[in-house]
């Protein structure tokens, strides 16, 4: 049995972590009252945030698993303050982690754009890598592009620092790409959180289950070591008449992926896990479809989990050699940085305006 550590940092990381815990309970609103979490492995979850209200909003993560960085009410998306704050609270966070025992793998979930998540994740991953031997993978959520210049520049620097933190792989999820989930912003966020949670739980099951065709943590590490260090996850669910080939293709299509990617052109390595009743899982069809993928990108690990009576589901993990969407993000981020610089310049002008007011310094109105 694997020992898994999942850390959710900042508002986005906290919500995805809470969604993972909720799905582990079974997904029902009241499931935490009557059900036990059904993780296939020993899973420890930790939520870290500087904003106590974000921690209080969590419903399915136990209070003892929530760490509030004291004397703060959020960082206001300021990564400089955030990194300094992490340094000051590093010992407390690492002590909490070390008290939870030994782990075989860790996932750090955060957004790339906010304050706490984007500024805490890279140094935390670096600390984990320095202190422990287990692989640390990060799951990073990219912002809506129209959310603002600060978020864009935060994302650019966060991803860069994440790469430099010696993480064993960055799995990307893109809000911009996923906003077609529908509904209002809150519904979209909830939907995205649930999508990420479902995929993470499926992935944990794939790493720690008895399977007809086996994939394990080593396979996952090999896949994540490929490409440019970025990866994404695809997922598709078939019904009892959908051919398994179609379900595999759906998991690799934009409708199934968390990040916009042309799998067949940008993919480097992949791991495909299939789950469902044996009658839906034709080995020939599976091999045929996976061979097609491997002929484009190279090596593809495949695993099959037999679940009697279940319709087929497919999880695909793909590392990317290149990603056009990331280029686009960085282009926007550079523009954002320039815009922020311009704003700074305009602030200097405002200071001149302030000098006008200095003319009445020392005077009092006469009536």
């Amino acid at each position, binding site marked *: 049995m694997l020992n898994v550590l999942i850390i959710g940092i900042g508002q986005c990381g906290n919500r995805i972590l809470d969604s993972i815990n909720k799905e582990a309970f079974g997904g029902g609103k009241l499931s*935490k*009252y009557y059900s036990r979490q059904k993780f296939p492995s020993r899973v420890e979850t930790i939520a870290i945030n500087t904003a*106590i209200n974000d*921690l*209080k909003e*969590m*419903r*399915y*993560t*136990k*209070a*003892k698993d*929530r760490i*509030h960085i004291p004397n703060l009410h959020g960082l206001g998306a300021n990564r400089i303050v955030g990194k300094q704050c992490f340094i000051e609270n590093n010992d407390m966070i690492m002590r909490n982690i070390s008290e939870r025992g030994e782990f075989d793998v860790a996932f750090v979930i955060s957004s790339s754009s906010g304050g706490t998540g984007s500024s805490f994740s890279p140094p935390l991953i670096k600390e984990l890598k320095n202190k422990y031997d287990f692989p640390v993978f990060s799951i990073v959520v990219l912002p809506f592009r129209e959310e603002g210049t600060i978020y864009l520049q935060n994302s650019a620097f966060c991803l860069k620092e994440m790469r430099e933190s010696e993480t064993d792989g960055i799995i990307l999820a893109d809000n911009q790409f996923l906003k077609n989930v529908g509904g209002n912003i809150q519904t979209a966020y909830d939907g995205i959180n649930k999508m990420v949670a479902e995929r993470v739980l499926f992935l944990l099951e794939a790493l720690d289950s008895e399977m007809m065709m086996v994939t394990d943590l080593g396979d996952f590490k090999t896949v994540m070591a490929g490409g440019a260090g970025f990866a994404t996850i695809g997922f598709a669910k078939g019904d009892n008449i959908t051919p398994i080939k179609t379900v595999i293709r759906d998991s690799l299509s934009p409708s199934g992926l968390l990040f916009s990617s042309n799998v067949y052109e940008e993919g480097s390595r992949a791991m495909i896990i299939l789950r469902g009743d044996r009658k839906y899982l034709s080995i020939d069809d599976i091999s045929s479809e996976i061979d097609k993928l491997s002929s484009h990108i190279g090596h593809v690990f495949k695993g099959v989990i037999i679940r009697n009576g279940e319709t087929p589901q497919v999880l695909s993990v793909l590392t990317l050699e290149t990603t056009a969407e990331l280029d686009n993000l960085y282009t926007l981020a550079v523009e954002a940085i320039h815009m922020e610089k311009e704003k700074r310049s305009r602030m200097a002008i405002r200071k001149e305006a302030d000098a006008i007011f200095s003319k009445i310094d020392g005077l009092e109105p006469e009536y």
Partner: protein
Amino acid sequence: MKSNRIIIHSILFLYLIILFMGVTSAADNTFDEKIYEGDGYQINNYFIEVSDITIFSEKLMLEITIYQLKPDGSYEELTTSTTITKDKRRVKYQSGSVEIIVNEKNLTSQYTIVDITTAGIVIEYETAVDGGVSNANYIGEPFLTLTKEVDKSNVEIGDIIRVTIKAKNDGNGIAKRISIDQGFTPGFTFKSNIYATYPTELDIDSSFTQMFIYEIEATNSGTFSLSPATASYSSSVFDDDYSSTSNSPSVTVAGEAVETSEIDIEVRADKTKIKRGEKITFTIHVENLKDGPASTIRIDPIIPGSMTYVSGSEDIDIISEKPVIQESVYGAKYEKDYKITLKADEIGYNELIVKLTYNNGTGTVNKEITSDSFYVGKGEFDFLAEYPIYIYVVPVLIIVAIAGWLYWRRSQFRM
């Protein structure tokens, strides 16, 4: 000298008279009786029986026996001596001063004629008896039962009451020399004798005999027990005096008419059937029917044990946890309603008893009235109590356990 002779002759004459009287009183009673064989003659409790007349050697033989009768019905044959002079028999019994002598005068084969002479006996009873000593009756002590009756027992001052005194001899001896004291009572005045002739002697087992009828007039108010009549009497068979006393009839004499009050009381319930736990309200209606005032009124509603007092009119006080109505005066024709509300605690039939006490001007009057019966049925939720306790305990425990679990679980997820 001549006058001395007259005095001496007078004294001698008186002496002879006294001597003659003394001989007479010393005894002798003589009976000339014809008695058949087997019959007899009773004198007081002595019995002379012609026991047998037989012919022996063509001569008639006579056997006479003298008996002493006993109170228990038995008799004793007395020792006698028999002498025969000129074929005539003489039977003699003597004990102390008592002497009985029977002289045969004539004798046939069926009867004899005898002279019976007694001495030392005051004859109270003498009679011929058919059938001999076994048919004789013992003459014992008399006992008079005396009654005193009045024709009215409730009268007013000035009314006349007729009193009758009767007597009956319930003893076994004749009552003689009867005298009666009528027993007059203070508070009454003798008016007139209606009938005063009574026998000086009463036989055994006589029916009641009117001895006195007289009238008295009530002069004072109150309740009186008339003084009993007393009869004094005697029996010479036994040298004792006796007396009997009558009953004392009660007579109530009302005083002058006083203006009084009379309170009428009613109790009405607003329902005839309620459920357990529900309330029922009674109206106690009181009314002074007369022109005189009633005072010191107290009304006590007696709450049934299966009910609880809830509330009542403001005139109702709670004394020792019981409702009590106390009023000083009800004027003439005064009416009032009091309300009292009770709650039913138990199932069953109930009624409200109300006790009323008041002074009507002449004394204390007590009344008690009971409401119509009303039924208390099962309460709305009584069926719940019909189930065993675990029916409630188990779900409660489950709910508590679930609530505890939810609270504990929620606390795990609250920050």
